[in-house]
């Protein structure tokens, strides 16, 4: 069996355009792949902590965008490449080349498609090019202290004053807000209707810091920062920043969430760099080596039949996710169009959690040592990774909410709430 890293990489049935584009990507990446990062990079864009990390990653995104590897399938009028089915090709080639990830994760993964489908033309043309290039970093203002899984109960309120809106409220778990130029923001414009009272805005954050916007870092259980509270106090924004109609916020948010769950129509390059050599490799492929380095009384953890079984289970689960993606493009091999796409985030997050937990079991006593300990196996990254995976299983719809969605939308079972 081949190395795990080309899992899901396929080169069989490309169109003419795709074949040529693939070759172009390969050639470009061969010459322009960025060198070793000058700073230690985190696992994903969500954990970017320093300006130096951000600067390095922004310059990489800019170069890739200018080469045409970002926004490939969006029209040229909004700064895209005007291609068809090519972002997937670019993603595959970037993954194969083990490039770093892009810092504008929320922008590419969620904001772009939302703006594209729900924004006015003027807004698209203004906001999408700097989003693709990474010049503008985006964040997402959905969750609130009282509205976690129950997104529709957000209380952040926009009060209309002529063609302006005055926004007050409190958002939490806002990844990247401390670097963000813009935010996609779900809020309430009518307190008397739960769903119909929601509207959706894009809001400039950085330019309003200290002028109605406060960003406060939250600290994760790992001790790292990386997400924030964002507080709005009488922030004034133009009505032109609204997406879609007043009261359609819930529908717009569904577009965002569908893309966040990797189930959207426009493939984004966000995941392309998840697995790269500069970040810590948190997939099953890292486990055999870890196990061989974990000495046991007679041999290593790689000789332990129970650990071997669990390691192989993680390989199988990862392979299944990749093959689910492949199968989701073949109508004859599925019953319901959303059945596979809606599973993706749930499976990825739970597999990652179990892999990291298994890594700790492999390390044994060594798993007690954290990243600051020079004797820690794998530099103490696995326990940190394990804790961070709870971010994946909680954020963007907890695993419990994901199972509700699957049970209700795909299996047609009665709503649980």
């Amino acid at each position, binding site marked *: 069996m081949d190395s795990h890293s080309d899992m899901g990489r396929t080169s069989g049935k490309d169109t003419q355009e795709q074949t040529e584009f693939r070759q172009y990507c390969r050639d470009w990446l061969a010459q322009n792949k960025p060198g070793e990062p000058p700073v230690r990079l985190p696992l994903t864009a969500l954990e970017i902590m320093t300006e130096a990390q951000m600067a390095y990653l922004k310059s990489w995104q800019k170069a890739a965008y200018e080469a045409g590897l970002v926004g490939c399938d969006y029209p040229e009028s909004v700064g895209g490449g005007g291609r068809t089915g090519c972002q997937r090709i670019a993603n595959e080639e970037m993954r194969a080349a083990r490039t770093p990830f892009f810092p504008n994760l929320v922008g590419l993964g969620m904001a772009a498609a939302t703006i594209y489908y729900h924004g006015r033309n003027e807004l698209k043309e203004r906001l999408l090019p700097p989003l693709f290039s990474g010049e503008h970093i985006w964040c997402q203002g959905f969750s609130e202290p009282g509205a976690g899984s129950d997104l529709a109960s957000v209380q952040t309120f926009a009060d209309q004053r002529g063609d302006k809106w005055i926004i007050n409220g409190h958002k939490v778990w806002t990844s990247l807000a401390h670097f963000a130029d813009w935010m996609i923001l779900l809020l309430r414009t009518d307190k008397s209707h739960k769903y119909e009272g929601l509207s959706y805005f894009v809001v400039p954050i950085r330019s309003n810091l200290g002028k109605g916007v406060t960003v406060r870092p939250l600290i994760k259980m790992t001790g790292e920062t990386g997400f924030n509270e964002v507080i709005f106090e009488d922030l004034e924004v133009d009505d032109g920043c609204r997406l879609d109609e007043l009261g359609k916020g819930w529908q717009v948010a569904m577009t965002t969430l569908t893309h966040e769950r990797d189930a959207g129509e426009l493939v984004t390059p966000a995941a392309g760099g998840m697995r790269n050599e500069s970040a810590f490799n948190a997939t099953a492929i890292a486990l*055999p080596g870890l196990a061989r380095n974990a000495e046991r009384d007679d041999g290593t953890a*790689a000789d332990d039949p129970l650990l071997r079984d669990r*390691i192989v289970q993680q390989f*199988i689960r990862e392979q299944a996710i990749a*093959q689910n993606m492949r199968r989701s493009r073949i109508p004859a*091999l599925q019953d319901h169009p959303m059945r596979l796409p809606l599973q993706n985030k749930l499976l990825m997050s739970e597999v990652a959690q179990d892999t990291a937990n298994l890594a700790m079991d492999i390390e044994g006593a060594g798993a007690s040592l954290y990243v600051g300990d020079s004797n820690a196996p794998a530099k103490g990254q696995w326990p940190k990774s394990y804790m961070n995976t709870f971010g994946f299983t909680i954020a963007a719809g907890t695993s419990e909410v994901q199972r509700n969605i699957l049970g209700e939308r795909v299996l047609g*079972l009665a709503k649980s709430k």
Partner: protein
Amino acid sequence: MAQPDNFGFGEEAALLKESARKFFADNFPTDQLHVLVATDPDPYRPVAAPWREDLWRQMVELGWTALAVPESAGGVAMPLSAVAGLVEEAGHAAFPCPLLGTLNTIYVLSGCGPEGEAALSAIAQGHAATLAITNRQGSWDVSRCDVRLAQNSLDGTAWYVQDAGKVSHLLVSAYDGERLCLYWVDVTAPGVTVTPDAIIDLTRDQAHVTFQNVVVDGQRVTEVCTDAVPVLKAAMPAIWTLLAADMVGAGEWLLQTTTEYARTRQQFDRPLGFFQAIKHPLVNVMIEVDKSKSLVYNAACAFDSEPDKATGYAHMAKSAASDMASFGSSRAVQFHGGIGFTWECYVHLYFKRQKHSQLFFGDGPWHRRRLALSLIDREAHAG
């Protein structure tokens, strides 16, 4: 050689799968299956494995058993991914017939070179066959068997022979004292005794087959391979993949049937599926079915176009499908409640079929143990 994006599952394969689904739905819905196989519930009933041989003949005439046969032997040589689609539908119908046995035999014979051609032609012409290669222990190591060749005749017993009551020929493995060989045996040859087993699965039949001084006469008993271990090993990925495809079909039936019940059955003034104690495990069953299905078509595609990856991917498919079969069948009974525990509810047919399939040709841990050799130890040098 790279795998095609679509698993090699093209238009023809899609049509085949669709017509198979329609064939079973039209001709043999589950209520008819139950009437046919579940007449006598007595656990100590005499062994009987009723089937609709007329429908099987129709399947043969539709050419479904020749799909996998190489063109040189008069077959169609469809890719394994297409054949897997057919088997998935047969599993969905839990259709009692020697489809798996015959297909398994084809994949082994296809590795036997010119010696296997005659047998393959017989299958292409409509004969059903099955493998008789398992020892009394039920070992899935193909190099182990209890049948011996001495003085040009076969002696010993092959165990756990699937579909044995529905086939005209057996492909038998036997040690000639030195090497494992394969023999194409007419079940009516003198000295061959097929003794049906009293198995739990009502939709299959199984037997142990005793050979007493069965002469290799070149007619009813012919030698088709004199170095069977590599041949059997090469065919195993197809065999595992097809059994997994069968389980995927049956697993989907259990999922849909239980989901339907959860949509309609009311408890505490709500449909059952309202309760997350039902909803979430059902979603987990769906996830396991989907994982298995994706891994099945990946394994099939590898068998067709990346042979060096076929074994590993087939281990993955059978491992996932086995665990799914056990989990999904148990949840189907549990969530049907009292009614699911009765003979009259169709769920038990699939429950029993899934438990059978789970344990045959290696269960989940068995496949993972072998996979570990390549995934974990392979890199020991590089590590």
